[in-house]
């Protein structure tokens, strides 16, 4: 038994080695290098000078104006704020839309359930770029919405509803991209609900509203929180929806970061913003872990 034990831990180590090497070098390594770059000085033609310089972070709040005077710059805070608000809005909308769907599916026969869940999952595995592109066709000038409205006669041929390049368009894109991720965890939670609990409760509470708020909601809370995080985190760092549907005028965190590396050539600043985004997400995940632990302790 002892020999097996020793072999086991050596085998464990060997088995884990590929993972550690690959993740360590190609996942953690890049993050460390990025953190390093965020505190270096930038080269105005692109790249960096190997010189310690916190201006990457300083630029988020303060910037030298054209006259080399330092002044407070709210613009990036606005971008961070806008990204945050849109992510929150997308999460709430996904929750409102997705919750009844998860509930309905969980009430079906097993065979129907499986097919429905499969149908919910399919879009998630298709290309996000393509799915967002579909909305350009729908929302754009002379797009499906405008054409149909024109056909019915609500608007003139030459008029434009100007749906594209707005925060609303981005919001629609975000919800569309990630709503399956809201439905699945909630559905999971609902599956674990004991039907008898609900039956028993329905004797106590006569109205459906009470049933939802007093019983179903609290019991499926882990699923709701899980789904919310799965939607909120990608929305916060989203790039495709703001880039395609926002027209480059409405920058969000994801497109701001990409902009630094594809056009602006300001690597330290781009890296700094990426670090800020990472910090926000780590905080949320940490808080979530804390809440989960407390929930488990209570239950």
């Amino acid at each position, binding site marked *: 038994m002892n020999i097996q034990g020793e072999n086991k831990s050596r085998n464990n180590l060997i088995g884990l080695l590929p993972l550690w090497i690959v993740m360590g070098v190609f*996942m953690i390594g890049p993050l460390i290098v990025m953190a390093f770059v965020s505190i270096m000085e930038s080269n105005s033609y692109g790249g960096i000078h190997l010189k310690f310089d916190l201006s990457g972070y300083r630029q988020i709040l303060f910037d030298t104006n054209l006259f080399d005077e330092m002044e407070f710059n709210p613009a990036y805070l606005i971008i961070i704020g806008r990204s945050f608000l849109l992510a929150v809005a997308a999460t709430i909308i996904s929750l409102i839309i997705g919750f009844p769907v998860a509930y309905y599916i969980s009430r079906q026969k097993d065979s129907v359930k499986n097919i429905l869940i499969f149908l919910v999952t399919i879009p998630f595995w298709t290309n996000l770029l393509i799915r967002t592109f579909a909305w350009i066709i729908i929302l754009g000038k002379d797009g499906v919405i405008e054409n149909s409205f024109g056909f019915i006669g609500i608007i003139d041929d030459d008029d434009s509803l100007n749906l594209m390049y707005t925060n609303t368009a981005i919001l629609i894109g975000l919800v569309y991209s990630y709503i399956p991720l809201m439905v699945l965890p909630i559905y999971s939670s609902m599956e674990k609900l004991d039907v008898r609990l609900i039956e028993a409760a329905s004797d106590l509470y006569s109205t459906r509203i009470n049933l939802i708020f007093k019983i179903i909601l609290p019991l499926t809370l882990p699923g709701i929180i899980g789904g919310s995080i799965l939607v909120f985190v990608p929305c916060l760092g989203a790039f495709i929806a703001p880039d395609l549907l926002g027209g480059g005028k409405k920058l969000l965190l994801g497109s701001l*970061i990409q902009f630094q590396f594809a056009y602006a050539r300001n690597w330290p600043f781009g890296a700094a913003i990426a670090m800020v*985004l990472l910090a926000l997400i780590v905080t949320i995940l940490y808080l979530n872990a804390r809440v989960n632990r407390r929930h488990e302790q209570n239950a």
Partner: protein
Amino acid sequence: MLNLMFKRKKFLRVWEFPGFLTWTFFFFGFLYIPIVILVIYSFNSSKFAMIWTGFSFRWYEKLLTNDDMQQAALNSLYVAFVAAPCATAIATLTALVVVRGGSFKSKEFSNGLVTLPLMVPEIVTAVATLIFFAFIGINLGLINVMIAHTVFCIPFAYMPIKASLEAMDPTLEVAARDLYSDRNSTFRYITLPLLMPGILSGFMLAFVISIDDFIITLMVAGGGSTTLPVYIYSMIKMGVTPEVNAISTLMLAFSIILVTGYWVFSKKS
């Protein structure tokens, strides 16, 4: 009297919500109608993707003469065919250790490490990988993309394999160890075949994820390493023509077939 009360409850139980059926119906509509519109317009004979003028296959024909796009599609396949097996292999090893290795110090850590790419926003991973490759000086064209893809495919391959392992009946292996004297044979003739559907599911998932990846490839790919999603992006930026719809439809069909295959496989196990 009791009969009546019983009847009323049966007619509409209080935990069934009548509006929810309609709600779910509209939900699936919301989810699928954009895709359907996209596909329909790929058969549009007019140049403008948004005004319907008639049925035509011409955009699909145009795809056949688009060399650059075919090269991009080939690149996507090359990358996926390298990244998916590598990711699956690493994921399998890791899953075996995590599930079967008993309790050991770094178990939680390894489990977390595997899922790290899922927790970091894609744009951050993309940018960090770009900087990393530039710094270290690794500039091997398509290989850069393959490495980046392998990394983020690992968690996707890992999850089905781990689930499959956890669902496996351990008594089979204990019985097998009585028959076969060494661990290797047990592994090869019992564990591996039982695990096969899970591994295949993981492989297919990793493959789909690699084919569909956009942001990371956009930042990391150099010359001659353009993949299909990146190529489609530059087409979209140039102007919306039904050519984009056509190639999008093909990509969608491809992904859906693969995912359906994965689903069928995972049901079998």
